[in-house]
C-alpha cells in the first residue's frame, strides 16, 4: 500500500470549518431549488455507498483537503475541544483500513444500516462550492439492537453531477452531549 498522504489540515482550514459550523445568526433564507436535484443526487448516492459498506468508493468522493467532523459541541472551536472525531483524509483511510483488517471486534458482526436523508437545502458558496444541509437518521442494526443515530448534517460539495465530491462533512448528532454507544461504522 502507498504511504498515506501527509495531512493538509492547518489553521486556515480549521478557521473555515469553524465559520461554516457557526450558528447561522444571519438566516440564510430558503435554499436554492435549482441546486436541490444535484445535491440530492450526491447525498442519496453517498447514503447508498455507506449503507452498502462500499467505503473505498465513498472515500474516493472526498477531496484531498477534506475534513470529516463529528463534533461533541458543534459551536465550540475544535482546536480547543475534543470531538467524537475530526478526520482528515489520512485518518479517514485509517478508519476504513481498521475495518479492512478483519479484526475490528466492534464490527463483528458488522452493523447493517439504513439511512434516511431528508430536509435537503442547498446554497451556492460563491467559490464554486455548494453548501448543503440535511437531516439524517441512520438506523443501525447489530446483534439484537436497532439504534437510531439522528443528526443534522452540513456538507460542502466541491462539485456536483456525475463526479460529485465532498470537501467538508459535519455530522451534528442531536445527542452528542449525552452518553452514546461507541460506533465504528461510518456515520
Amino acid at each position: 500500500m502507498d504511504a498515506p498522504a501527509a495531512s493538509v489540515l492547518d489553521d486556515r482550514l480549521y478557521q473555515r470549518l469553524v465559520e461554516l459550523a457557526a450558528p447561522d445568526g444571519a438566516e440564510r433564507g430558503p435554499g436554492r431549488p435549482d441546486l436541490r436535484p444535484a445535491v440530492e443526487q450526491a447525498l442519496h448516492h453517498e447514503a447508498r455507498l455507506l449503507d452498502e459498506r462500499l467505503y473505498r468508493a465513498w472515500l474516493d468522493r472526498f477531496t484531498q483537503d477534506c475534513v470529516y467532523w463529528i463534533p461533541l459541541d458543534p459551536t465550540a472551536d475544535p482546536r480547543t475541544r475534543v470531538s467524537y472525531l475530526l478526520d482528515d483524509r489520512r485518518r479517514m483511510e485509517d478508519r476504513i483500513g481498521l475495518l479492512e483488517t478483519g479484526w475490528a471486534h466492534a464490527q463483528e458482526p458488522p452493523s447493517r444500516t439504513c439511512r434516511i436523508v431528508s430536509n435537503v437545502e442547498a446554497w451556492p458558496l460563491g467559490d464554486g462550492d455548494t453548501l448543503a444541509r440535511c437531516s439524517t437518521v441512520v438506523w443501525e442494526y447489530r446483534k439484537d439492537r436497532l439504534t437510531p443515530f439522528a443528526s443534522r448534517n452540513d456538507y460542502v460539495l466541491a462539485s456536483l453531477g456525475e463526479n460529485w465530491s465532498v470537501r467538508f462533512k459535519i455530522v451534528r448528532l442531536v445527542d452528542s452531549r449525552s452518553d452514546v454507544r461507541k460506533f465504528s461504522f461510518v456515520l
Partner: protein
Amino acid sequence: MNALDTLIQSHRVHRSLYTDPDIFVTEMEKIFGGAWVYLAHESQLPEPNDFITARMGLRPLILTRDDDGGLHGLFNRCAHRASTVCQSECGSARRFQCSYHGWTYSNRGELVNVPFAEGYPPDFDLSDHGLAQVPRLGTYRGLIFGTLNPDAPSLAEWLGPAGPLISEFVDRSPSGRIEVRNCQRMVYRGNWKLAWDNAGDGLHPTFAHRSFLLLNERQHGGARSLSQFKASPDDTGMYGADLGNGHMFVDQRPGLQQSFWETQRPVPGREWYADRIVESHGDDAAEVLEMAPGSMINLSIFPNLLIKGNHLETVDPVSAGETRLHTWVAAAEGAPDEVNVLRMRIAEDFPSLGNPDDLEIFERCQEGLAIPEVEWVDMSKGLGHPAEEVAADGVRRAPVTHEGPMRGYLRAWLELMSADANLTTARAGETSFEKAA
C-alpha cells in the same frame, strides 16, 4: 447474597460480582461512599460561584465554589421533598432554587428562604434544612475527591504511592497544572468492574486491539502507537503494579523504542502544527512536541478514576449491567496552543479507533457472565510467580501481562464491602477540607 469473602478467592472471582443487583446496590453505597471518590477537577470550576454536577455512585451531587473560593459537595436533593435543585451540567450560581415549592439554597448549601413560611411548626429552623453535604472533601494536584466515611484515612494516605504518579501526569504541563476541557461520553451494557479489570490489564492489547495494531503496521509501519504490545510484551520492561487501596498502574514507557512523539500515530494536522513548533522553539521543539501525545501510563484510582493518555476518565455505574464512561480530556496548561490542538486530535484517536473494541468485549463478557452454572472468572496469571516483586512501600510490581493489579483492587473491594462504615452526610459549616498536594 453469599458471604462476600467466598466470592473472591486468591485466583478467581465469582460471576455474581458482575451480575447481582444486590451486590451492586451495596457497592454504590459502601464503595462509592466509603472510599475517596473522584468528583471533578478544579479547572472545571475555576471562578467563585462556579459549579459542576457529578455523581458519587448513584448520588447526584453539585460541586460548588462559594464566593470565597471554598469548595462544597452538595447533594442535589431538596431537603423538602427530594427533587433535584440543579438541572445544569455546570455554570455559575449563588443560589439554587427548587422548582417544586421554591425552597432556595446558597451555594454553601444553607437554606436561605422558604416561601409562605407561615404554617411550619414553631421549632422549624432553616439551619436544620440545608442541602445535605459530603462531609469530607480533599484535593490532590487539582483533582477533587470526596468521601462520606468519617473513618477513611486522609486523602494523601488513601492515595499512597498513586499520589506521586498523579503528580507525574500533571507535571507534564509546563505550569504544573492541567486544564480539563470537554468530555466524550459513552455507555456500555456491562458491569463497571469490567472497565476496571481492563484498566490494569496489559495482556489484552495484543488480542483485543489486533485491528489497531494491524492497521498501524500496514498504514504507518514502524514502532507506532501500541506496537509495544505486538509480541512478547513482558520482554519490553513494561510492568503493572498493585499500588494498594485498589489503585493500579500500568507503565508502558519502558516498552517504547522511540520518543512519545515519534511513537504517536499521525493525527490530523500533525505536520503543520509540528512545523509551527519547530519554527518557534528551534532546538527545544522535540521537548515541546513530547507534551502532545498521551502519558503512556494507565493510572487507576479506585473506585472511579482512570487516568490514561491525556484523559481523566470517570467510571459511572448505572446498574449491575450498565456503565457510563466519561472521558475528560486534559490540556497542558502553559504549553503552546499548537500542543493542545494536537492533544485534541490525539484524544480522538485511540478512543474512536481502539475503544469500540474494548466496549464490544465488555458486552461480550457480560453476555457470558449470564450463565449461572459457570461461576468463576479466572484472574490467576502471575499468582506466586517469582517475577512479582513487593517493594518497601508495599507496591507489588509484575510483568505487564500479569493479573496482579486486578487481584489487588478486588482486595480493596472486599475490604470496603465488608466494613461496617458509618457513612454520614454533613450540614453547611460542618464539613472538612484537606489539601493533600
